């Protein structure tokens, strides 16, 4: 398969190894003489450490070292990209600030001894009052960190509160307001985190294998933390990584601590996170409480929108921290034209694990608020929620469309996209079915939500707003690099700066190269996740890989093509402009028999004496790509649910979607991203929630109680697409990694609320566990 492979559902080249269990993950990579680390973690959300007795652990055979904050304080706190608020000490320093905070690190000859050693460390705590509720934290009645002046570490604000208020105060306007919690979630990747640190004494370099989505950032942090000569002395490798969802878009204390221990002990040090540990020491996501308000005219014309609330950042700022809500600001207005807008989000510390990027990062939150409130407005206005949306959408002729929040959206035809869904899902038929069911006392709901997201995180100008890797000592911004190399035997190697965690970049990048160069897929190898191979890369997140990294690959391939055409022209005694590439070689346009193979081209390119006069040997090209804008994929989703009137149990009967992510390289992979994304968003709507008690204990610290959806809980999703390419990049691709997650959450909640609207129910707090739905029904009935 070569040309024409762009846009086809090529099977994933990653899968043969993964499906056979042969993929090499961090814990599959073994080293001679390695040691293992385990952590003593705080059982309290807020407590003073009064004593640490290491003696029993140190005396255990096989225990090599027991480290506390005194041993690592000089390395400084954990670096963060957006260093606003309190940074995390590598090990708790005098006071623990959340359940699960690492207090002591034990390193032993193997993981079992390390665990025994950790259990043998005696830590005494003096419990202090824990602040768990972010709204209470925002009042500053009690401080989370004594050394900070306020629990509110940053406030995002945009638009004009007065203008919104004026419209709300107008007598002829309808005001719809909902205060909702977008609850805290625990990213649950199938592979827990893990690191293997190897300090090379004598060379004073370090190699770190880690489950990251951003190897370059980790390398930068290592270089700064350990005072290395540069990132050239910190090689960070993300081998196969079993899922990310944003939890790998971070730099973690355990990465630094394992390197420290390896340096101290002169042995490779491995740490593999346990599932229960993951729920407290890896970042959480979401955690917003906010009020959304829509002001409309009685005919449904939208006037103003505001979203005001607090975003829980947890106890310590890591990586993006307060920059997560601002990604939500980008899409906060939704797909609607407003005359006035206002947004204010207080980012607060609480005594809970850090909150950072989780699939969608900010955009699922703001999309949830606007889409839930649009549905509520439709009820207030007595309008059909579809008609209300269409009436207020940006129209095709508005693009490129400027939003009041200061963004410019590239392209879109929201109305047609929604029309296709209405047709395809037979929403008229569904409404008739719903009517008939209601007559029988059944509660069936049809929920619609539409969205636009800001993807392809770029352009590099965002760096000036603080979004770059400068916090890790790398002044690289949100661009990507790629290398395409034709080897002497005419096979091709592609090196990318993105950090895939299951997305299929190897396949898709090969498709892009194969399509452009007519080299068969099986002759292409994609290398990723190793900082030694790429000059830079921001990593995988924000649905940006194809729209930034994939495009860099295409540009590098085009550069190869340009040079290779000259070589082919030289061999064929033709003009380079007339050379076309096909069938693993090149020929003169219109004369397929005047051809050379890639083998001929490569053989020539690597033998200077056979090259055209004055042309340098080799076929190796690097490209950097910085798009002109974000990309703005969008779509329309519908869910049908039935609520059991006796139990509040929600049965998801069907789910259909029409998505537009611009041009598509591999439809199967896009469908896969949508299926997983939709499932994850449904997880938030129906099942998932990090629950703390008032003392800050995490009650959902294992998968026994933190409920994630399984395939058996979900119907098969019915997917369709429209195609509106972006002009922000030459491939016209927009990104699809987060779309499903962003919109499926409000889709489901809208469906359940629609089902229960005959009872006058307007909102139910997520997750819509049967207990909550039943309680809402009870309250409405009484």
């Amino acid at each position, binding site marked *: 398969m070569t040309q024409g492979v762009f846009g086809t559902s090529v099977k994933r080249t990653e899968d043969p190894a993964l499906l056979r269990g042969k993929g090499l993950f961090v814990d599959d990579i073994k080293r001679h003489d390695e040691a293992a680390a385990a952590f003593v973690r705080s059982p309290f959300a807020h407590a003073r450490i009064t004593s640490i007795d290491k003696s029993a652990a140190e005396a255990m055979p096989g225990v090599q070292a027991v480290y506390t904050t005194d041993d690592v304080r000089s390395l400084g706190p954990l670096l963060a990209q957006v260093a606003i608020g309190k940074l995390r000490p590598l090990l708790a320093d005098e006071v623990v600030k959340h359940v699960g905070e690492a207090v002591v690190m034990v390193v032993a000859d193997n993981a079992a001894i390390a665990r025994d050693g950790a259990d043998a460390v005696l830590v005494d705590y003096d419990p202090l009052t824990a602040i768990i509720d972010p709204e209470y934290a925002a009042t500053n009645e009690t401080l989370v960190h004594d050394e900070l002046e306020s629990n509110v570490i940053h406030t995002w604000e945009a638009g004009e509160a007065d203008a919104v208020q004026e419209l709300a105060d107008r007598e002829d306007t309808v005001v719809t307001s909902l205060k909702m919690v977008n609850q805290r979630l625990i990213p649950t990747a199938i592979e827990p985190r893990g690191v293997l640190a190897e300090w090379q004494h004598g060379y004073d370099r370090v190699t770190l294998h880690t489950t990251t989505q951003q190897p370059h950032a980790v390398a930068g942090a290592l270089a700064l933390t350990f005072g290395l000569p540069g990132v050239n002395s910190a090689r960070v490798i993300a081998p196969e990584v079993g899922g990310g969802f944003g939890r790998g878009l971070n730099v973690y204390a355990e990465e630094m601590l394992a390197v420290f221990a390896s340096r101290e002990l002169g042995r490779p040090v491995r740490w593999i996170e346990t599932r229960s540990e993951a729920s407290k020491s890896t970042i959480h996501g979401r955690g917003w409480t906010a009020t959304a308000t829509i002001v409309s005219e009685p005919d449904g014309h939208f006037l103003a929108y505001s979203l005001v609330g607090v975003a829980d950042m947890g106890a310590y700022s890591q990586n993006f921290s307060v920059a997560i809500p601002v990604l939500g600001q980008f899409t906060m207005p939704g797909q609607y034209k407003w005359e006035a807008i206002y947004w204010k989000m207080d980012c607060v510390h609480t005594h809970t694990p850090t909150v950072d990027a989780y699939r969608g990062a900010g955009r699922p939150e703001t999309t949830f608020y606007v889409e839930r409130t649009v549905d509520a407005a439709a009820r207030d206005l007595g309008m059909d929620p579809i008609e209300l949306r269409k009436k207020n959408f940006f129209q095709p002729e508005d693009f490129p469309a400027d939003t009041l929040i200061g963004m410019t959206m590239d392209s879109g035809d929201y109305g047609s996209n929604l029309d296709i869904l209405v047709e395809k899902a037979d929403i008229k038929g569904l409404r008739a079915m719903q009517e008939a069911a209601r007559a029988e006392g059944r509660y069936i709901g049809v929920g619609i939500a539409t969205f636009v997201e800001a993807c392809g995180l770029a352009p590099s100008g965002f760096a000036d707003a603080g979004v770059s890797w400068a916090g890790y000592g790398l002044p690289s911004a949100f661009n990507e690099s790629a290398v395409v190399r034709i080897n002497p035997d005419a096979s091709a190697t592609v090196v990318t700066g993105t950090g895939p965690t299951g997305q299929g970049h190897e396949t898709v990048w090969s498709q892009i190269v194969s399509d452009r160069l007519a080299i068969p897929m099986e002759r292409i190898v994609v290398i990723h996740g190793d900082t030694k191979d790429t000059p830079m890369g921001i990593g995988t997140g924000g649905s940006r890989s194809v729209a930034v990294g994939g495009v860099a690959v295409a540009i590098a391939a085009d550069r190869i093509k340009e040079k290779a055409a000259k070589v082919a022209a030289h061999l064929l005694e033709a003009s380079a402009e007339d050379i076309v590439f096909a069938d693993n070689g090149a020929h003169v346009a219109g004369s397929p028999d005047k051809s050379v193979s890639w083998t001929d081209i490569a053989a020539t390119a690597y033998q200077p004496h056979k090259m055209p006069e004055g042309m340098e040997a080799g076929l190796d090209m690097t490209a950097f790509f910085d798009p002109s804008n974000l990309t703005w994929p969008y779509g329309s989703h519908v869910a049908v649910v039935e609520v059991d009137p006796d*139990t509040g149990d929600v049965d998801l009967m069907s789910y259909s979607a029409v998505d537009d992510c611009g041009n598509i390289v591999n439809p199967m992979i896009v469908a896969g991203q949508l299926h997983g994304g939709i499932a994850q968003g449904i997880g938030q709507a129906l099942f998932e929630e990090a629950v703390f008690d008032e003392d800050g204990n995490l*009650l959902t610290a294992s998968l026994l109680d933190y409920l994630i959806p399984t395939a058996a809980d979900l119907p098969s999703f019915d997917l369709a697409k429209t195609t509106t390419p972006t002009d922000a990049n030459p491939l016209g691709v927009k990104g699809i990694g987060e779309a499903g997650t962003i919109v499926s959450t409000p889709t489901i909640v809208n469906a359940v609320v629609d089902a229960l609207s005959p009872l006058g129910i307007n909102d139910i707090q997520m997750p819509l566990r049967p207990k909550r739905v039943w309680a809402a029904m009870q309250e409405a009935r009484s």
Partner: protein
Amino acid sequence: MYPRQFDYVAPTSLEEAFAALGDDSKVMAGGMSLIPLMKMRLFSPDVIVDIARIPGLATIHDAGDHISIGALVTHGETASSDSVVANATALATAASLTGDVQVRNRGTTCGALAHADVAADQPAGALACGAVMIAQSASGTREIPASEFFVDAMTSALRSDEVLTSIRLPKTGAGEGSAYDKLGRRGGHSDYAVAGAAAWVKKSNGSIEAARVALTGVGIKPTLASGVADALVGTDGSDAAVAAATEHALEGVTVLEDLYGSEEYKSHLAKVYVSRAIKQALANI
């Protein structure tokens, strides 16, 4: 996560197993509940006696007047056995709704009973179907009726030196039927029971002659709701009669709030599922 150190014994006969069992030992069958507890270090026995290699424990046996389910019969086998489906429908259904495919392929019915988890499915089925537990040890065999088997939170009547070698279930006679239904934690039937109920009824000449109703998920242990059964007996099993009987569902039960429901909600659910189970049991006759 790593469990604490323990000794592992894999006997090939019951006698060897008995010899290995002691005060701080645990029998392991499918390991589906035992291993996670050990890995979380909530539970650290000195000796694990893995009974998987003991011959003769993996069968479902028809003994004429009753059937027996051996200690190594998996949830999946219980669920799909024609004999169990016909003679102990409630237990077969409960087994079919236990966990996911992987768990049903490894976990055992006897293990689920011995584990005595209040949120588990099969204990309710065993209670309603009138199971008798066969507990064997070096000192002999005890026959423990299901009604006396579930003693406390995660505590059965088994001694630490005993193996639950099989359970016996009476065969379904004329006019008898049973059923199990639950609300799972992830909604529908998915996951452990927020609340569930199993019912067994015997009808003759249009009236209910005998009944057993069991609850799961709501208190501290799977339990018989004898007040419901007593109220049902003698009625015609009409919806009104079922509704009246259901009112007795929580007699003697202390309903406990958890992540999945308030006391009020779980009390309500108990009645919903008692009613559903009875109606389905009547329909299954």
